[in-house]
Each structure stands twice: as structure tokens, then as C-alpha cells.
């Protein structure tokens, strides 16, 4: 426990669940954050993942500098990768490299926006449930119910009914991602709510908003950070899946749209570059996000720091 902030240290006498996530139900203070970073940077997988994610963010932000926006058509149709077209061209003669680069913007936008919405709703519902015990039963039922729904068919149905657009994709993905966040955060928040410092806070104020905002949410932040990354990568997968089914925004480039257009033009059987490069991009993002969350979680766990 030496590495913990003494003010928020877990009382040793309290029966705390031993699972990894609740091992350290405390806010990341400056010192804890630094300690986490010290461990994290020794993990090559974590650093590589972080580097890849940052690279993708840079690609998204610098897209206009890296490639011109894919023109509406070109004359070199379905050319395999070459020096002129590093990723080849599609059935309208457009440069696949440009499509992948500009698609990064859309894919990251969906990932970030959908996970922010999902995290906001998920966390709020979780801490409210954990704090107000009477609501908890009701919220748990809703969450369990939503988690048991067949998500993909529902996403397809809703996206098809509302009509394809970036906002629809973000909304649909967020709408089906928040219960996961709620479940994860709730289990953590339940432990936190019972800690003595929360009881102490109750003596200072009657405002649950203040207690939740000042004490409970900071205590569950690490879990939120982990679920941001996981939710974001799931959002990318869902968005690509929906776009591949033709339910994405047909006027904005995304990785899923490249796959969808390859399928629609019947070029999948012959033009391997149409499916390979966007798939690699999706793989990179999802894999690095997952590895990053694992590495972060490991680094945050004091048991690992002791190694």
C-alpha cells in the first residue's frame, strides 16, 4: 500500500473484493498516476499500442496533408498496389490509400463520439444506481435486459429505419454500448459507496450530486478509462460492420464503406487490396486499443508494480 495516496488509502480491515478492478478503488492522484506511468512505460506492448493509437489520431488529424480527398472518379480502375497507388485503386479508379486515410477520420470520430456518449450515460446510470440503493434493482434489471438483447440485429434494424448517416451510427453504437459500461462501473461504485470516506462525506452535505461528483466518480475513474478504450474499439467494429451492411453514411469515407463498396461492386473476389487495407486499419485500431487497456490495467494494479 505504500504507493497509494495516504488520504484515500483503502482501510486494510475492510473486506474488499479481490478482483483486479476493485483492488484499488481510489482516484488517480498525481503520485499514483506517476507510478502507473512508470510501470506502463516498461511494458513494450503498451507503449507500442499507445504509439499506434497516437499514429492513427495523427493520421486522422493530418488527413488533408497526407492525401487529397478521394476524387469522385479516376481513370485507372481496379489497379493493384503499385508505386503510383500504394494501396491500389477501387472500381471507380479512386485511390484506396486516400480512402483509408480519410476513413480514419470518420472511424475515430465514431469511436470517440460513441464512447463518450456511452461512457457518460453508462457512468451516470451506474453511480446513481450504486448510490441510491432503491434504484439499483430497477437499473440492474434494465441493464441485464439490454445486455441480453441481440445487439447486432437491433442495430441493423434501427440504422435501417432511421436512415444512414454518421449521427445515426454514433447514436446506435452508443445506445447499445452503455450497459456494458454501467455494469463495469457499477460493481466498482458499489464498493466505493460503502467506504468510510463516503460516509464521512454524507455528514458534510446532504447533496448527493456533490458526493457523487466529488467522491464517487473520481474513485471509479480508472475503470472508466479502461472502458473508454474498450468501448471505442467496439464502436469501431460496430460502425464498420454497419457500414459494410450498407447502413453507414454513404457520403463520408469510412473503413466500413470501403469494404461495403468492394462488396457492392463485386470486386471482392478479385481485388484483394480493397479489403486488405481497411481491414488492417480496423485491426490496428481495435488491437492497439485492447492491448492498451490491458497494459494500463496491469500498470495500475499495485500488485504488478511490486514486481
Amino acid at each position: 500500500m505504500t504507493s497509494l495516496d495516504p488520504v484515500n488509502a483503502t482501510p486494510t480491515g475492510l473486506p474488499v473484493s479481490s478482483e483486479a478492478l476493485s483492488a484499488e478503488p481510489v482516484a488517480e492522484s498525481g503520485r499514483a498516476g506517476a507510478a502507473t506511468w512508470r510501470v506502463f512505460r516498461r511494458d513494450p506492448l503498451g507503449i507500442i499500442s499507445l504509439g499506434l493509437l497516437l499514429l492513427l489520431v495523427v493520421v486522422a488529424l493530418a488527413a488533408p496533408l497526407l492525401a487529397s480527398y478521394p476524387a469522385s472518379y479516376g481513370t485507372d480502375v481496379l489497379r493493384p498496389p503499385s508505386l503510383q497507388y500504394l494501396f491500389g485503386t477501387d472500381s471507380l479508379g479512386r485511390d484506396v490509400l486516400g480512402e483509408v486515410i480519410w476513413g480514419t477520420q470518420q472511424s475515430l470520430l465514431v469511436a470517440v463520439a460513441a464512447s463518450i456518449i456511452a461512457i457518460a450515460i453508462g457512468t451516470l446510470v451506474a453511480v446513481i444506481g450504486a448510490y441510491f440503493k432503491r434504484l439499483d434493482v430497477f437499473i440492474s434489471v434494465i441493464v441485464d435486459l439490454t445486455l441480453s438483447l441481440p445487439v447486432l440485429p437491433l442495430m441493423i434494424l434501427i440504422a435501417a429505419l432511421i436512415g444512414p448517416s454518421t449521427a445515426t451510427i454514433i447514436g446506435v453504437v452508443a445506445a447499445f454500448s452503455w450497459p456494458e459500461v454501467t455494469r463495469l462501473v457499477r460493481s466498482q461504485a458499489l464498493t466505493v459507496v460503502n467506504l468510510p470516506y463516503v460516509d464521512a462525506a454524507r455528514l458534510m452535505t446532504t447533496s448527493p450530486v456533490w458526493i457523487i461528483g466529488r467522491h464517487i466518480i473520481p474513485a471509479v475513474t480508472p475503470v472508466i478509462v479502461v472502458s473508454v478504450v474498450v468501448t471505442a474499439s467496439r464502436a469501431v467494429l460496430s460502425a464498420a460492420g454497419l457500414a459494410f451492411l450498407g447502413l453507414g453514411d454513404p457520403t463520408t469515407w469510412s473503413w466500413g464503406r470501403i469494404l461495403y463498396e468492394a462488396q457492392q461492386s463485386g470486386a471482392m473476389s478479385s481485388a484483394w487490396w480493397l479489403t486488405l487495407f481497411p481491414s488492417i486499419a480496423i485491426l490496428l485500431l481495435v488491437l492497439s486499443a485492447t492491448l492498451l487497456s490491458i497494459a494500463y490495467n496491469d500498470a495500475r494494479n499495485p500488485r504488478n508494480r511490486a514486481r
Partner: protein
Amino acid sequence: MHNHSTRRGTMRTGIRRGRALTLVTAAAAITFVLSACAPSAPEASSGPVEAGNDTLTIATTTDVVNYNPLIGNSRSDYWVTNLMYPHLLSIADDGKKEPQLATEWGYVDELTGYYEIRDDMTWSDGEPVTAEDVAWTMNAVKKDAPSGTFYGQLANFVSAEAVSDTRVEITLASPDTSIVEEIGFWGNVVPQHVFEKAESVATFANNGSDGGWVSAGPYLLTDVQVGQSYSMDRVDEYPLVEGGTPVAAKVVYRVFPDVNTEILALQSGEVDVIANALPPAQVEQLKATDGITVEEVVGLGYAHMTYNMTNPDLAKTEVRQALAHAVDYDAIRTVVLQGQAVSTGSSPLMPVLSDYYDKSIKEYDFDVDKSRELMESAGYTADASGNFPVSFRLIYSLQDSVTSQWAQLVKDSAAEAGITIELQGTERNTYLAQTNDGDYDIYAGNFAIMDDPVTNFTLSYLPGGAINYTLVDDPELNALIAKAAVTADSDEKISIMRDAAKIVHDEVYDNIMYTQNLYFAHSSKWEGFVTKPSELLSIVNPISVASAHKTAAQ
């Protein structure tokens, strides 16, 4: 005229699916390219081909939803039922009608048409195919109004009567010089002794539950595995095919998820024919693939955009002209269609309708400066960045990959002219609903078969016409179409229709962009296919399927 909507709706069905492209050709130019590699008709082989024991496997992408050929249906429905229920007439590459069950047809007088039918056709249960079947089918369709192509043709039809075993006469409500051929081509003939047991032909499922199907075509459906396959056995007597017996013993339609998997299945030898038209970008590659033969098929329709005239901006002729001049038609045909489409001269009278085609009607030039001038003369002023204060919503179906691709090109070139187009691609059913409600500024889509100009103009340009997507009502045009419909003399009729087409062109009541050449792939182990226009008939029409046989080397 509402009735016709179903027919056109039906025709649209397959076209708008992404993989299923459509349409015509100025065939001559391209046909010779194929004739080198594609075995065409049965006479290409030496002597008549003996009926064999082979199975011809055909790939499709949809299940059969409807076994009743009188009801509006999908591609697979049409292909499978077409092998069992004959049509009176077939169609040639230039849209002219050819004999099938009927040997002769025409008019007794202004209000009476007739068909003489063959006397050597029988249903697979032994009953002869008679004029009674033909007349009964027509009368039942008129009475029960099934939601299909066939009923759409019966607006002027009153009743049919079998005056002998081989002659049917139909009575018309008003003179109509197109109806005999249109009914003959679009209508199937069904066995009276089977279908009359049903309360209504509009609701009869004909799903074989009552002891299987009865066929007067080359094949009889015997086994259905929904989602997988439709097996059909040869009918021994089919007089329309050379030799009198279909060659392949069995025909199996197999269902695949999409055209990509169909192509893979063809390459691996799992199937012998792909019934869906090939995506334009795949044609060259498959032509170059060993063991695969690609056949060219003449389309008989067109792809077009219409401008909704209930929109006050689009009601102005100059605005429609400005839009028409802001489309790079050549780029669309060269890139999206890979050169597999021909200009119609922006006229609904396509080159393939050789009698009607009018060379003097020229395609709208792609000239954005001209578009700007037209917009200015219509009273619009461009802002500092060169954009006019208009925005139009263009709808198309996402299942139609070719239209989805060129819609983007249309948007980009219109932007050059300072006109904003907002693309709204939606799932097909949403798109059809929007189309029916007039919920669009610009409509983009296509028709598979527009074989008869008078019928098409009636539907497309008369007020209330089922496919009048421009919502146009021009008295001069209306009068010309009405006159053509009652004109029996063909030269005079052609001249009237050309005048009408000129109005449509000059006023941009319709922006016809191209007719598309279609390509179909089959295994080189098979030959003897007979091509017919459009994806509906292509190389899977009854004569073609019945004539196909393995190459001598097999």
C-alpha cells in the same frame, strides 16, 4: 394507370439491387467483340444436340418468394416461374415481339385483338395448353387484379374469349395499338385446371402444396430447399426448343449471398451459370478468366434522373436545363459503367428501338458555364463563392451499386456549376416509398425493359402516370401521346412519338442518361445459350436454358 406502377415496380426490383445492373446497348458496336469468344446459338455446334443427363446449376442471389407468376415478383421468382408458365410472345434485341406460345397476333378491328396459339403444347400433367387457358388467365387477372406486371397491362382490356382451341380474341375498352403485344409479352399463361381451384389468382400461392406444380415450359419445379436451392426436372416435350426435348436433364437454381460469392462459385465449378448481371468492373476480368465465358445481352431500358416539378425551383425549365448540363455523362459511362453503356441522346427513344430512335436529338453537353448562364437567366444570383441559393435532394437506392456510384459524380459536377445536390441514398424499400410519395427533388433510378414507347410515355409523362416521377403535365405532350396511342399506321406513330420525345428532351421532363450493356457469365463447359434482352431474360430464358448443353469435349 396506377396498375402499371406494379409492373414498373417489378422491373425495378432487380435492377436496383446493387449487383443487378440493367439495360441496353447500341448493340452493334460491342457485339462483335464477344462473338469471337462466345458461342451463340445452338447452330454453332454440329447437328442437333441429344437430350443428355447433365444438370445445369444456376446461381441467383434471392429466394423465390412467389410461385404465382401472375403476382409482382423478384428476379428469382421470374426466372423460375418463367421455365414453367409460357408467355404468348417473346422479344427480340430491338424490342420487336417474337412468337412464343402465340404464332400470330394482331387486331380484328379497333376494339378487338387476337392471338393464334400453337396446338402442340401440353401441361406436364397431360392436359393440352389451349386457347381456353389463355382466355381464362387474362379474364382472371382482370377480375382479381393481382399486384403484378401482367395486370398493369390490362387497363384497356375488357375481356378475352377462346373462339376456337387455338384462337383467343380480346375486347378493348378503347382503341389501343400497343396492348396486344404488351399483354402477349408481359403476361404468362397458367393452367386453368389448376388455378381455377383457387378463390382468386391474386392470392393463390401456387406453392406446390397440392401435389406439386404443373408446367408447360421446358422444366418442372420438383424440390425446394428454401435458402439453398430450387431443383427442376426436364419436361420431355417442349416443342419450342430444337429437337423438341430440353437438353439438360435437371436445372438447379442455387441461392448465394451476393455476386462476389457467385463469382467464386463459378470459378470453382460449383455453378455453371450466374443469372445476375455482372458488375461492370468485373466484366473484363472474367472475360480473361480461363474456363469462363461471358455473354453480352442487350438491355431494353435506361437509367435516368427526373426533376420533381412540384418543387418551385425545378418547375422552371432553365433550372432543369442547368442541372442537365451539369452532368458529365461521358465520365459516368466510361468510369462507372466501364464503357458498357451508350448514350440515348438524352431521349427516351433509345437507339435500341431502331424504328423510333431519332439521331437529331442530341445529348445535353456537359458545360458548367452554360449551367451557370441558365441559372442566371432563371433569376438566380451566385454568392461570393459562386454558389446559387438552391439545394436539391437526390434519392437513389443503396442496393443499386451503379446508381450509387454515379450519384456521387452528379453531385460533384453540379457543385462545379454552383448547384448544391444533397445525396440521399437509402435502403430499397425506403427509396420506393419515397418515390411513390414524390418525396424527393431529384430521382435517380432505372428501368429494365421499356419496350414500347407509347406505353412508356403514357406511364412516364401523362398526369397520374405510375412512373411520372417528374410529375409533369404538359398539354402539348399529353395530346401527342394520346394521339399516338390510337394511331395504327406505324410511320405516323413513330413521327408523333419523335415529336413527343423532342418535347421531353427540350423541356428536360426526363433526363435519360444511358442504356447499359449487360454481361452474364457461364462456365465454358457449357454452350448453346440463346441471349434475350434484359436481365429478366438474358441467358436464363426458357429457350436458352432448354438449349444449353455441355461442350463436345466434355
